[in-house]
């Protein structure tokens, strides 16, 4: 008797054709929820696991522990050292990837149908029985420290590090999750086991499976794979307000092109105005060649190769961010144009025609995302993370269509504030100085 519960089936019919994504939601006998798409035409399976927490669970004084621990999951487990583990993985022709992010632990696996039992057993071993051998810790630590040192000479990373620190201070968002040379140097094997215990838990876990697999078998498969992880993890950090006031910060760095990172506070993902903000951002700076900022800064003036903006609704804070790079003698002009466009959008909003064009693009582009097992698995686990139901894939375009010009223009004036924008500029920009 198969005890998995098939709770629902949702179909995304793309706008124009007959193909369909059939999302089955299941709960395993052991209580693990997952979304499944059966796609037997290619003999492999894509599995995506996300666990909220990630590097935000680093304990005081242990910055970088989750990141280092994550780098060590593939460096030996059970009775296999790093090389034995990798040799086994290669012989199965499977790919496992383990990544830590600010708020999330991410585990991705792709494996052939013919190797499914062995691949899952090896994945389980890596997740539940990591060794954290001292030799592996030392080796991976050296790689992490090399990366931290490189970041200190990378203009984009320099700008990002300053921006995060100024915006979020002591909150985990304020510091690089890789840690500092000092904090990473001090990490011990015991710290690795602690970080592992905290970050890999069944609580706050989200799973999607796509490919040559049936929803019936996924339940027991997930119980076997993940059932031995601890049920609960430590509490997540508190929310934090964006703390950086408007202005300019110049960080002197000898390089021919200045890079600018800019932004201010944003909007939560579950805010009722989020879709309006999403469309505003699309028109302002996320729409590639069709965005106002690309038109004004690149197409009309040739000041940059690229400028873009992003809504960044993190779990504990929200931002609207943008980035642009321009030669040291033109970055000031690029920033001036950007600030003017920010003000124009806040004050005048968008035209009915711009709104129509953006909606047509966004609704037309959405179904195109679902064009591979890996992509579908990634989208489905991302939806679960932010609390969206499976039927969102069917309704999402209606949400976009429902936004009115009045809503857009109200939200633009509420969301965008040119005076609150802070530009962090790394380079030797002419005509720009740090504001008071």
């Amino acid at each position: 008797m198969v005890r998995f519960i098939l709770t629902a089936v949702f179909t995304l019919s793309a706008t124009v054709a007959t193909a369909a994504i059939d999302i089955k939601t299941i709960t395993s006998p052991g209580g693990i929820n997952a979304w499944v798409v059966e796609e037997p035409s290619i003999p492999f399976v894509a599995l995506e696991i996300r666990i909220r927490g990630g590097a935000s669970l680093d304990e005081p004084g242990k910055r970088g522990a989750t990141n280092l621990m994550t780098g060590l999951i593939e460096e030996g487990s059970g009775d296999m050292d790093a090389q034995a583990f990798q040799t086994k993985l290669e012989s199965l022709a499977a790919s496992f990837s383990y990544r830590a992010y600010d708020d999330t632990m991410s585990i991705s696996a792709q494996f052939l149908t013919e190797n499914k039992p062995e691949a899952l057993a090896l994945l389980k071993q890596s997740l539940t029985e990591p060794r954290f051998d001292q030799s592996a810790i030392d080796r991976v630590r050296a790689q992490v420290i090399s990366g931290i040192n490189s970041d200190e000479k990378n203009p984009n990373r320099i700008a990002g590090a300053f921006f995060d620190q100024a915006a979020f201070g002591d909150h985990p968002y304020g510091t690089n999750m890789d840690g500092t040379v000092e904090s990473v140097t001090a990490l011990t094997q015991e710290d690795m086991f602690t970080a592992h215990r905290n970050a890999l838990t069944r609580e706050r876990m989200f799973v999607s499976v796509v490919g040559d697999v049936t929803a019936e078998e996924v339940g027991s498969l997930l119980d076997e794979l993940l059932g031995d992880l601890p049920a609960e993890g430590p509490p997540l950090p508190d929310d934090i307000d964006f703390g950086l006031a408007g202005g300019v910060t110049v960080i002197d760095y000898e390089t021919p092109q200045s890079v600018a990172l800019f932004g201010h506070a944003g909007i939560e993902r579950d805010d009722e105005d989020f879709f309006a903000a999403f469309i505003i951002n699309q028109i302002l700076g996320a729409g590639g060649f069709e965005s106002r900022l690309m038109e004004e800064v690149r197409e009309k003036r040739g000041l940059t190769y690229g400028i873009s903006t992003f809504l960044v609704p993190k779990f504990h804070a929200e931002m609207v961010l943008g980035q642009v790079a321009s030669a040291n003698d033109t970055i000031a002009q690029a920033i001036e144009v950007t600030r003017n466009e920010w003000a124009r959008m806040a004050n005048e909003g968008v035209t009915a025609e711009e709104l129509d064009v953006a909606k047509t693009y966004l609704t037309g582009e959405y179904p195109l995302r679902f064009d591979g097992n890996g992509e579908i698995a990634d989208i489905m686990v991302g939806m679960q993370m932010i609390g969206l139901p499976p039927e969102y894939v069917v309704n999402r375009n209606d949400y976009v269509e429902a936004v009115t010009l009045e809503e857009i223009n109200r939200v633009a004036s509420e969301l965008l504030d040119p005076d609150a924008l802070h530009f962090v500029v790394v380079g030797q920009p002419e005509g720009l100085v740090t504001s008071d």
Partner: protein
Amino acid sequence: MTRLLVAALTFFLPFAAQAEEAVTTFTLDNGMDVVVIEDHRAPVVTHMVWYKTGSADEPVGASGVAHFLEHLLFKATDNMESGEFSATVAANGGSDNAFTSFDYTAYFQRIAADRLELMMQMESDRMINLRITEEDVETERQVVLEERNQRTENNAGALAREQFVAALYQNHRYGVPIIGWKHEMEQLSLQDALDFYDLYYSPNNAILIVAGDVYPDEVRALAEQYYGVIPAEPNLPERIRPEEPPQRAERRITFVDPRVSQPYVTRSYLAPERDSGAQKEAAALVYLAELLGGSPFTSALGKALQFETQTAVYAGAGYRGSSLDDTSFGISAAPSEGVSLSEIEAAVDAVIADFKETPIDPAQMESIRAQLRASEIYAKDDVAGIARRYGTALTQGLTVADVQAWPQILQEVTAEDVKAVAVKVLNKDQAVTGWVVSSEEEAQ
């Protein structure tokens, strides 16, 4: 809803079963080659036009013009305003872009399958009707210079690579960067762009690739309607490029830039590429790259430098067989704290010498063989990737038959084949060794 779902599924599965290896090719009367790759899992199409022309085909003194022209193709034509191409794609829910390499320039759109005709109409229009102005050239030249700033001038590693590649090729245009040398980019003119466009943007120099939820008959009808009516370019030159002379001496370069954080050593050896009907050496080089420096855990360089002696934080090897002319085989290593570049280079050389003398572990050969076989299965999940595979091959002297033979040729590589290419290719007289450091002291 349930009945709708069942209907969709029954329609869906037979198509999916067909998706495997559904590749159709034909040639239009004007010489334009067409490749159709079917994948009916999603109602999406990737429409690409590849020109068999890249930066290595540029006239002397106009480096960067191939890439510059690629940017200018998004400007006006007789029938479209500047920017209208991408705006139309976006207004139909699609995305578009383009890329330039040494041997090809390609334009693509990814869009709902029922918009294919509109893409063909616009892409064929800009193959012959481009109307760029002096003003376009002035502004876009600034854009590509900023692109160079972003990709190269602001990146010490990229600047170093440019120097090393320029030294590797003593006669061939591969020594000139795709984006162009800055001083030549600054002088690119409207006429430079138009001359390049008029000669090379022609159907007999182009390959149409349509991949996704399409059928060959419908693609053929549309291709004949839109591309088939464009006359062939009678003066299209044969692709004859200056060949490399015999390389007789090792070259060494030390690149100093204070923006370097982690010093490293790289070496690029001149190496054979995949040639039509003769891909065996290239296949052996794929194995050589994996065995020597593929995985940090199991390759020769990884095992020796990252595990046994822990003298490197990174060590690896790489090979890209797709190239019209001689390509390169690269190795690199970043020393651990307290290890000098001389020491790590000596260690790399010792691993290479040992590799040439020691028998190859059969288990490792079989593991790589299995991974290459599996990668063909994973590749089926990405139809746009398969489209790129055909585009790169067909613009670089290979045929459809070569592309389809390649996986089997890879399966048949033996340890002896790998040994033979290792001895032939890993020859310092045909190589550039580069050190990348932050100061002269670091290079001691």
